[in-house]
Each structure stands twice: as structure tokens, then as C-alpha cells.
């Protein structure tokens, strides 16, 4: 008997390759519950107000003011003009969609692949998805110029007998982004239901009990409910995984179907998905590194989690490097003078050369630092890398969009693009709205999926020795 045990021990992988415990804090279920809801039930800390007030100001004043000015005056208040018809609005749209993707990848794709470590960060990442898709979805709606005709994009039967043109990827985008918003919100909300029931059961005041109770929909946690719930969760994560690949692919096709050097490339759908996920992992690091410290969740979102996200970011950085290399190679190998012109000017043009360098240095080269374990374990450095990746990915979109538009086939058609203060104001407003929503989420909803975390602890398994024990201290 002991022999078999030693044999098994020798067969199990070396320490470095063993699976990490999903919840390294080996505590009782009650302790975990208290710990994970402590931030929602405690006093609002000072840092929350310091971050929330400026974000709320941007969301409540800057964004509406900019939108009112833009809608009442017209697209001319932005820098968009011939030949650069797509400016910051589309850059920011693609950027926000990109930020969203890592959330779905973590919450859905890692669920399907049974990566139990994802439970601790799934909800926080999914919230990031929901809020950034909201920001993304706003941009095309205001980009059209005449916002009061936005409803033309939907197949609404009217006396005019007009229908959308379904051959256009721009049309597909309308459906893709709205679908992404609805599906990720549904997925996120459904994951929240058991935890809303938990908040309801723990509520001390009538108001909290009522509000959490309302959104918990009367969840009791019966085995029959869990049975249907788990199935629905599995299906939703499968469908959300499809969207990781669909949404940014379609955004990529918006570009690839145009006959423009620098856009007309078959690699674009894949390119945009990879870029989106890279950017999103950067944002996950930016959000989680401070939050785990400030919300005292170091036992739950451990260094091992940060390490895994860093490794994913490293992988994505390598993929980005590969894609950039392929793009430049194809521009040269195709022998197309327009392609070579655009790609040469990305790096050595007189106007926007910096974008190309930022894109290669930050997105492809900087993540290579994450090969080094010391760097992956240095939270300050990882945080800075996360911030820089977000900036780098923003410049990638700038390079693709403005860098390809400003010098097309006819030199007579050339021009330059400068953003205006309204461009910057709208972006600032969306950043504020995103962080405001995120801070509200962190404050009022459990940012760690409590029931999921409890379900992956060893004591939750009735067939394991610790599952038979009662509550541990």
C-alpha cells in the first residue's frame, strides 16, 4: 500500500510543474465567505473616494458635455477630415473592444479548459469586459455623424422600406458588438446570481436586503437550481468563447475589406483578436495589481495568478511580434509599391514614425522581459508593463488607422491628421465612465466569485478527506 503511494509520488510531476491550488488559502468556507465579502460590507476606504470622484466627474460632466457639443455641432469638432476619415473615434473603439477580450478569454475560455485558477479573477475580468464593451459601443454610434439616424443600422421595418446592407462588415459589426455586450452582460450577471443571494443573506440593512434580494431573483441554492445553473453556465461560456474570436475578427474585417494598403490583409482578423487579447491582459494587470492590495485579497489573487497572467501576456507579445514581422515581410515580398510605401512610412515616415516604433518596442519587445521570473514577481514593474501595453496597443491602432489613411494611392490625396481637444475629451470621458463603473462594481458586488471559489476548495469536494471535515477554524 505504501509502496504504491511512493510510486505515485515519484510519478507525479516535479514541484514546478504541479498544478497550483485554485485557492491557496486553505481556510474554512465561512472564513472565505467573510473574507471575500468584507470589502463590500466594510466602510468605504479613502482610496476609493480618491479614485471615484475624478472618474465620476469625467463620466458625469466631461463625457456628456463633449457628446452634447459634438452631436449639436457635428463631426467637424473632431480632427477627422479628408483623407483621414477615421480618427480617434475608431482608434478608441478598437482599443476598448480589445480591452474587453481578455475578460471573456479568462472567464469563458479558461473555464472551458478547466483552469480552476481562473475562478479568483474571472468575475473581475468579466466586469472589465462588460464596461469596456459599453464604451466601445458608444463610438461607432457617435462616429456616424448624424446620430439621429443610428437606428438605420438596425433592421427596423418602416414606411421607407429601407433595409441594412448585410454584405458590409460594418453592418456585421453592429450585430457583433451589441451581441458581445448582451452576452457578456448575461454571463456576468448569471455568475453573480448566487453571490447576490449571498449578499442578500448577509445583508444587515433592509435596503441592502431588498436590492440584493431583488437582483438575486429568489435564488435558494437548491441542488435542482444548481443543476440547471451549471449547464447554463457551461453553455454560456462556450458561446462567449466564440465571441472572443468573432468580435475582433469582424472589427478586423472592417479594415481588411477596404482596398487600402496597410489594411487589405488576410491576417487582419487574427491580428485584431491577438491585439485585443494582448491589450486586455495589460488592463487586467492594471486593474488587479492595485485592487488585490487595497481590497486585501493577496491570499486569493496570489502572486501565482499574476505570474500566470504575465505568462499569457508574454505569449501574446510573441504572437504580436510574429504578426508585425509577417506584415512587414508581406509588404516587401508582395512587391506592391503602395504596401512598401505605407510600411516604410510606419517606421521612417516624416509624420507618424513614432507610432510604428512604439508598437514594435512596447507590444512585441517589452513583454519579452516577462521571461525573467524576477520581473514577473515584481508587482511595480508588472504594473508599469501593463500600463505601457495599453498605451502601446493604442498606438498600434493609431498606426494602422491614421498611418494607412494619410497617404494613400494619389499624392494629391494626402493629408495629415491632428486630433482636437474634443477627441481627447470624449476619450477622457469614456475612461472616466469605465473606471467609475468598475469602482462601483468593486464596492457593491463581490469582485471574487464567492460561490465558485468555495466550490474549487478541497473541502468542497465530498470525496476528499477534507470534505468530510466540518468547518475548520
Amino acid at each position, binding site marked *: 500500500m505504501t509502496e504504491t503511494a511512493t510510486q505515485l509520488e515519484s510519478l507525479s510531476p516535479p514541484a514546478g510543474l504541479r498544478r497550483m491550488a485554485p485557492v491557496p488559502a486553505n481556510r474554512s468556507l*465561512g472564513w472565505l*465567505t467573510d473574507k471575500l465579502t468584507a470589502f463590500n460590507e466594510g466602510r468605504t476606504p479613502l482610496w476609493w473616494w480618491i479614485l471615484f470622484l475624478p472618474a465620476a466627474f469625467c463620466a458625469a460632466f466631461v463625457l456628456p458635455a463633449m457628446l452634447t457639443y459634438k452631436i449639436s455641432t457635428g463631426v467637424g469638432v473632431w480632427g477627422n477630415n479628408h483623407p483621414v476619415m477615421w480618427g480617434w473615434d475608431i482608434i478608441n473603439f478598437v482599443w476598448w473592444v480589445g480591452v474587453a477580450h481578455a475578460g471573456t478569454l479568462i472567464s469563458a475560455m479558461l473555464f472551458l479548459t478547466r483552469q480552476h485558477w481562473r475562478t479568483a479573477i474571472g468575475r473581475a475580468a468579466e466586469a472589465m469586459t462588460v464596461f469596456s464593451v459599453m464604451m466601445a459601443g458608444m463610438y461607432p454610434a457617435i462616429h456616424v455623424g448624424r446620430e439621429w439616424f443610428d437606428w438605420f443600422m438596425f433592421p427596423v421595418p418602416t414606411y421607407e422600406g*429601407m*433595409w441594412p446592407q448585410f454584405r458590409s*462588415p460594418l453592418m456585421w459589426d453592429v450585430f457583433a458588438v451589441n*451581441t458581445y455586450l*448582451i452576452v457578456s452582460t448575461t454571463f456576468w450577471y448569471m455568475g453573480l446570481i448566487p453571490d447576490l443571494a449571498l449578499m442578500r443573506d448577509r445583508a444587515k440593512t433592509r435596503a441592502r436586503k431588498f436590492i440584493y434580494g431583488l437582483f438575486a431573483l429568489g435564488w435558494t441554492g437548491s*441542488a435542482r437550481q444548481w443543476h440547471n*445553473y451549471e449547464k447554463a453556465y457551461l*453553455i454560456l461560456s462556450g458561446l462567449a468563447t466564440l465571441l472572443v474570436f468573432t468580435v475582433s475578427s469582424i472589427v478586423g474585417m472592417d479594415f481588411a475589406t477596404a482596398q487600402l494598403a496597410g489594411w487589405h490583409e488576410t491576417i487582419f482578423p487574427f491580428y485584431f483578436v491577438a491585439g485585443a487579447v494582448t491589450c486586455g491582459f495589460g488592463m487586467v494587470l492594471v486593474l488587479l495589481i492595485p485592487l488585490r492590495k487595497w481590497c486585501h485579497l493577496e491570499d486569493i489573487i496570489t502572486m501565482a495568478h499574476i505570474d500566470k497572467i504575465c505568462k499569457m501576456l508574454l505569449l501574446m507579445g510573441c504572437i504580436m511580434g510574429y504578426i508585425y514581422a509577417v506584415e512587414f515581410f508581406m509588404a516587401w515580398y508582395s512587391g506592391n509599391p503602395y504596401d512598401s510605401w505605407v510600411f516604410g512610412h510606419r517606421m521612417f515616415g516624416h509624420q507618424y514614425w513614432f507610432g510604428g516604433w512604439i508598437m514594435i518596442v512596447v507590444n512585441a519587445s517589452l513583454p519579452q522581459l516577462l521571461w525573467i521570473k524576477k520581473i514577473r514577481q515584481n508587482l511595480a514593474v508588472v504594473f508599469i508593463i501593463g500600463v505601457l501595453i495599453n498605451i502601446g496597443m493604442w498606438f498600434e491602432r493609431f498606426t494602422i488607422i491614421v498611418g494607412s489613411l494619410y497617404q494613400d494611392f494619389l499624392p494629391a490625396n494626402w493629408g495629415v491628421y491632428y486630433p482636437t481637444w474634443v477627441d481627447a475629451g470624449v476619450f477622457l470621458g469614456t475612461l472616466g465612465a469605465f473606471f467609475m463603473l468598475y469602482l462601483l462594481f468593486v464596492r457593491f458586488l463581490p469582485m471574487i466569485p464567492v460561490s465558485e471559489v468555495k466550490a474549487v476548495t478541497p473541502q468542497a469536494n465530498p470525496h476528499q478527506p477534507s470534505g468530510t471535515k466540518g468547518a475548520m477554524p
Partner: protein
Amino acid sequence: MSGKNYGLVAEFDSPAAVLSAAEKVRDAGYSRWDVFSPFPVHGLDKVMGLKNSRVGWFSFVFGAGAFIGTMGMIWYMNAFDYPILTGGKPTFSVPMSVVPSYILLVLAAALGAFIGMIALNQLPRLHHPLFARARFALVSRDKFFLVIGSTDPKFSETETRRLLAEIGGAHIELVEDKD
């Protein structure tokens, strides 16, 4: 008190305890009973004899309907009601219609899964007889509850109570159904 009874509830401390209790309740021949837990307990489906959840059917029907419906809609709009000729291409073709149809398939299938979960669980409901019991608030924390319904043909207040005590249930109580 004039209210009907909902059932007898017993409390357990661990998933293993409630699982073995559930096995004994099943072996005793009860049919209308349920287990309440803070997270899905592995193996309970089998003990309770729960078949594959029907949520998948909701998802499938919604998704398939949306795919076919969108295909039909695109044909109707772009090929029949108001044909748009662009570049000599056919007014309707499958490849160009697949993308929006596929997206709406994902949308409808996801909503179908959610609606199916809600409908099969008979949610939303504003009240549940068990909520009247203060200790039941621990169900989302770290306690496990086994409830034998009073509508069970084998239910008898004394016998069932004895069984629940035998299998290790604590705080056994009769829950009223005031609705």
C-alpha cells in the same frame, strides 16, 4: 396556525455529510426532497437522480431559430423586398449571410441558456418558505440543508424527523408554507 407545511429541514456541516445523508434519504424511498448548498455539490445530481438539464434544449432551439430566422430576414430584406445590386454579385448568397446569422445564433443561444435556467428554476420569485427561517441564511455561507417536502407520499412528521436525526441532521425544524 393555519398554514400548510412546506417540509422538514435539517442542517449539515459539510458536503460529504449532506451527500451521504442524501443517499440515505433516497434509500429510504423519499421522492420529493431537495438539498440546498452554497455551491454545487459534486455527485449530488446522481444521488437525486437528476437527468441532464434541459437548459441545452432552450439554447439549441433559440440558437437554431435565430440562425434560420436571420438567414430568412437577410434574404427577405436584401434579395426580395428591396434587392440591392452591388458589383454584379448575387442578391443573396450564403457566405455573406452566415456571419450575421451566426452572431445572432450566439446571441439567441446565450439568451436561451439564461432564460432556460431561469424558467426551469422557476425564478424569479420574491419569496420562498425557507427564507422565513433565520438559519437558512447560512445556505449561501457554509451550511448544507436537506429538505423533505410535506407533499412526499412517505412524509410523516415523526418518522421523517427521526430519519433526519438518524442521518446526522442538526436543527431539524418544520417549515410552514404561508403562501
